[in-house]
C-alpha cells in the first residue's frame, strides 16, 4: 500500500464527481502531495485514470483505477505585478478565478466549464482545465490555455517527477513540454502543478449583435470584425432554427470604458452593412451571453451526441451545409463548430474529408468505444504520438487508449 489515502469509489465519486468508468467497490487513490502521487503511479499494477474534479469525462472509456489529484491543491504563488500565477493541479478553478479577480486579473483564455454540457457534477480543477486545454471564446484574441500556460510539474508514467517551463512568460530553455502536456488528457503524465501568464481583467465589456444572418453571412461578418483593428475578444454565431431566421451573430469587445465605447461605435458602423446592429453595453448581460457560448449551454440537457469541429473559418459555412438540420453553434469566428448530432452516428463519415478535425465530446460509452473520439491522424503522426506515449508512459498505465482510435493500435 502506498502513502496515498484510499477511499471507496462512492466516497470518491461524491468528492470528485467521478464519471461512469468506476465500478462499485473499486478503490480510489487520493494522494495529498506530489510525492504521494508519484508513489501511487510507481506502485500501480494496472491502468490509472488521473482525475481532478471529474467534470470532463471526455475520451474513449478507460477501465482503470481512479487516481484523484484533488488532494494536491492550493495556490502556490500569485505575483500580480509579474502577471503570473502558480497553483497545484487539484486547485479548484473557482479558487483561482477568485484570487485573480481580487487583484483585478483573470485567466486570459476563458476556460469552459463542461458540467452542464456533459451532465457532470463536481468541482472543476485547474489541472483538468490544462489536461483538456479547455479554452473559451477569447481563444481568438488571447490564445488557448496552452498559450497562457508557462510551466508544469507532472508525474510521468514511470512515476518520475518532471518539471518544464517555469513562472516567467519568455522561456525557450530546452524543449517546450508545457505545450505538449496541455491537452494530453492525462495520457503523458499526471499534472501536479501549473503556472500561467495572467492578464488584467478589463472594467468594461460590450456585445454587438446582428439578427437573422445566414451562416455564410454570419461568418463573413465575424471575419470582418476579427480583421478590424478593434481588438475583438469574442466572435460567435448561434444558428437558431432550421432556416436561421432567429439566429444571432455576436461580437464582443473589452477594455477601458472609453475605449470600449469608441470601438463599439466603430464596429456598429462597419458591421451595419450586414444588418441592424444592436449594442449591449451592460457588462453583466454581456458576460452572461458569453458564459453560455463558452459552456455550450444550448446543448445542455438535450438529447444527442456533441461533436466539436475545428476548421478554417472561411470553410466553416460550406462544411456546416453538410450538417443538414443538426443544431450547431459557431465560435472562434467560425473556426470552432459545436454540433448536436444524432446519437451513435459517425459525423466524420457524414462530413467527408475537410481541413481540420472533429472530436466526439459527448456520447454514450458504447459510441465512444466504437467511434474514435479524437480525429485519427495520418500514419507518421500517429506513429510519433505512439512513440511519445511510450516514452512518457512506458508501462501504458496512464489513461491507456483514451486518445487513440479503437482497434489493435489503441488497445
Amino acid at each position, binding site marked *: 500500500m502506498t502513502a496515498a489515502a484510499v477511499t471507496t469509489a462512492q466516497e470518491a465519486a461524491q468528492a470528485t464527481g467521478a464519471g461512469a468508468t468506476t465500478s462499485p467497490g473499486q478503490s480510489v487513490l487520493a494522494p495529498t502531495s506530489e510525492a504521494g502521487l508519484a508513489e501511487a503511479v510507481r506502485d500501480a499494477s494496472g491502468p490509472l485514470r488521473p482525475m481532478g474534479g471529474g467534470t470532463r469525462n471526455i475520451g474513449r472509456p478507460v477501465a482503470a483505477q481512479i487516481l484523484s489529484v484533488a488532494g494536491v491543491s492550493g495556490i502556490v504563488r500569485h*505575483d*500580480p*505585478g*509579474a*502577471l*503570473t500565477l502558480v497553483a497545484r493541479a487539484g486547485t479548484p478553478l473557482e479558487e483561482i478565478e477568485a484570487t485573480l479577480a481580487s*487583484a*483585478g486579473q483573470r485567466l486570459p483564455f476563458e476556460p469552459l466549464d463542461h458540467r452542464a454540457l456533459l451532465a457532470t457534477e463536481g468541482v472543476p480543477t485547474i489541472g483538468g482545465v490544462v489536461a483538456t*486545454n479547455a479554452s473559451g471564446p477569447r*481563444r*481568438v484574441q488571447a*490564445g488557448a490555455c*496552452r498559450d497562457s500556460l508557462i510551466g508544469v510539474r507532472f508525474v510521468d508514467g514511470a512515476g*518520475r*517527477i518532471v*518539471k*518544464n517551463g*517555469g*513562472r*516567467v*512568460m*519568455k*522561456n*525557450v*530553455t*530546452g*524543449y*517546450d*513540454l508545457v*505545450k*505538449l502536456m*496541455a491537452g*494530453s488528457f492525462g495520457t503523458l503524465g499526471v499534472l501536479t502543478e501549473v503556472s500561467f501568464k495572467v492578464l*488584467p*481583467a*478589463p*472594467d468594461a465589456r460590450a456585445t454587438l449583435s446582428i439578427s437573422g444572418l445566414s451562416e455564410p453571412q454570419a461568418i463573413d461578418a465575424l471575419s470582418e470584425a476579427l*480583421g478590424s*483593428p478593434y481588438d475583438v475578444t469574442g466572435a460567435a454565431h448561434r444558428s437558431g432554427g432550421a432556416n436561421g431566421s432567429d439566429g444571432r451573430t455576436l461580437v464582443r469587445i473589452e477594455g*477601458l470604458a*472609453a*475605449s470600449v465605447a469608441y470601438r463599439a461605435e466603430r464596429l456598429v458602423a462597419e458591421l451595419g452593412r450586414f444588418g441592424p446592429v444592436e449594442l449591449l453595453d451592460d457588462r453583466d448581460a454581456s458576460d452572461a451571453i458569453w458564459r453560455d457560448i463558452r459552456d455550450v449551454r444550448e446543448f445542455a440537457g438535450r438529447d444527442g451526441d456533441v461533436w466539436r469541429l*475545428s*476548421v*478554417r*473559418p*472561411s470553410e466553416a459555412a460550406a462544411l456546416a451545409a453538410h450538417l443538414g438540420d443538426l443544431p450547431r453553434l459557431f465560435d*472562434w469566428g467560425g473556426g470552432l463548430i459545436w454540433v448536436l448530432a444524432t446519437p451513435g452516428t459517425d459525423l466524420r463519415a457524414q462530413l467527408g474529408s475537410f*481541413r481540420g*478535425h472533429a472530436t466526439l465530446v459527448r456520447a454514450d460509452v458504447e459510441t465512444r468505444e466504437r467511434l474514435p473520439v*479524437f*480525429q485519427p*491522424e*495520418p500514419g*507518421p*503522426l500517429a506513429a*510519433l*504520438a505512439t512513440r*511519445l506515449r511510450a*516514452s512518457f508512459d512506458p508501462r501504458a498505465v496512464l489513461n491507456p487508449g483514451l486518445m487513440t482510435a479503437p482497434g489493435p493500435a489503441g488497445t
Partner: protein
Amino acid sequence: MQMPAPDATVLARRETIVTRLSEVLPAEAVISDLAETRAFECDALTAYRCPPLAVALPSTTQEVAAVLKICHEERVPVVPRGSGTSLAGGALPTADSVVLGVSKMTDVLEVNTADRIIRVQAGRTNLSVTGAVEGEDFFYAPDPSSQLACAIAGNIGMNSGGAHCLKYGVTTNNLLGVTMVMMDGTVVEIGGAHLDAPGLDLLGVICGSEGQLGVVTEATLRILRKPEGARPVLMGFDTAEVAGACVADIIEAGVLPVAIEFMDRPCIRVSEDFAHAGYPDCEALLIVEVEGSRAEIDEQIGLIRQLSQRHNPVAFRESASDAESALIWKGRKAAFGAIGRISDYMCLDGTIPVSELPMVLRRIGELSDEYGLDVANVFHAGDGNLHPLILFDANKEGDLEICEELGAEILKLCVEAGGCLTGEHGVGVEKRDLMQTQFAPEDLEAQLTVKDAFDPRWLLNPAKVFPLSVSATRREQAA
C-alpha cells in the same frame, strides 16, 4: 566549449555523400568546396566556427526530403539553418555534418485575411512576412531584433520573441501549422489554418526545439490587423528599483502596453552618444508603448503618467508625432550597435520574474565589479527578459574566458531568482553546458525522450541544447 569528435567514417565517405546530394539537387545547390563552405562555418555567435562537410540549399520540400533521406541512410548529421542569425550557436556545424539551409525557400504560398493567416516557405525573413500583408493593413506580430534578416525557420526553431510579445506573444503563440520533414525524409503536415490540435500538441513541442526534431519547410502563421496607431512614452528614474516598481504599477493597474523596454545608465549613455535621441541623464530609462486610436492612446498614456508620478520620474516625455516616436525608439534600437562600436560584447538572454528585477540588477552590478568587466543592461521589462551586455576586449588574452564566466554567473543568478537561462535566443551551444543548473536529471530525461521519438538516430542538429555528457549514451547507441 567542446564539440564531439567528428565521425571518421562519415568524413571518409565525403565524396560519396556529396555525389549523392548532387544527384537530387541542382548543381548550384550543393556546396562542398572548402573555400565556400567556410561561409557557413558559424552563425551570429562568431566565437565558435567549424566548416561543415557540405552545404545543401534546396528549394522545395521534396528536395529537403531527398537530402534528409540520403543523410539518414548515410548516417550523416544535419545542421538545419535559416538565415544564420542565431546568437546561441544554434546553427554551428560540426565537421562531419551537412548544413541544410532553407534560404532559397522564400515564397509566399497563401495570404488569407478572412482567416487571418499567411502560409510561407520557411526561409522567408520575418520582416518580409509582414511585408507580404501590410498592403492589406495586417502584420505578423513576433519581431525579433534581427527581423530584417532572420528566417521564419529559425524563428520556429528558437521560438523567437521580440519587443512586442507582452501583448502579442512569441512565435509559438502565432504559429498555426507546419510542413516538416523528418530525419528519415518523411514529410508530415502538422496543424493548419485551424486553431487547435486533433491529438497531442506536436506543434507546441516542435516550436523551440532548435531544429533537433525535424526540418520545417513551410509554416502557417497568424496575422493580425494593424492597430490604428501606436505611441511611446519615455520616462527616466533615479534608480533601477524605482523604474522596476513603476513597471509593476503599470501592469497591476490593468494597462497592457505592447512593449516596456528598460535601459540602465551605461546603456543610456552609449546609445545617446550614438543616436542622439535626447535621452535624459539618469540611472534607469523606460520606454512604454501603447496602441489604439488617438483617444485610446491618450487614455492609456494619461494613466501611465498618473502612475509614474508616484515614483518621481526625472523625465517624462510623451511623443507627439511619428518623428518623436521614432526618436524615442532610435536609441533603444541602436543600443546593441552602439555598444558594439565601443567594445566587444557578449549578449545574455536570461529571464526573471519581473518582481525580482531590483535584486537581480543589484547582483549583476556586484558581479560586474567582482569580475572587473562592465555590464550594460537593456531589456524587455514587461516580461522580465534581460539582455545584459558584458563588455570585454577580444584582443586581450583571457578576457573572453572571464566574460564567459561572468555570463554563466549571471545566468545562474537568473535561474536562482526563479527565472531561466534563455528567454528568446535559445540554448544552442552557448548555454548547453548550463542546462543542469536549471534542470534536474529527470527533467532533461523527459526532453531527451522527445528527441528519441522524433530522431531516433540523433542526427539532427548535433551537440546543441543538451550537455554532451547527458546525451552521450544515446549518441553512442544511435551510432
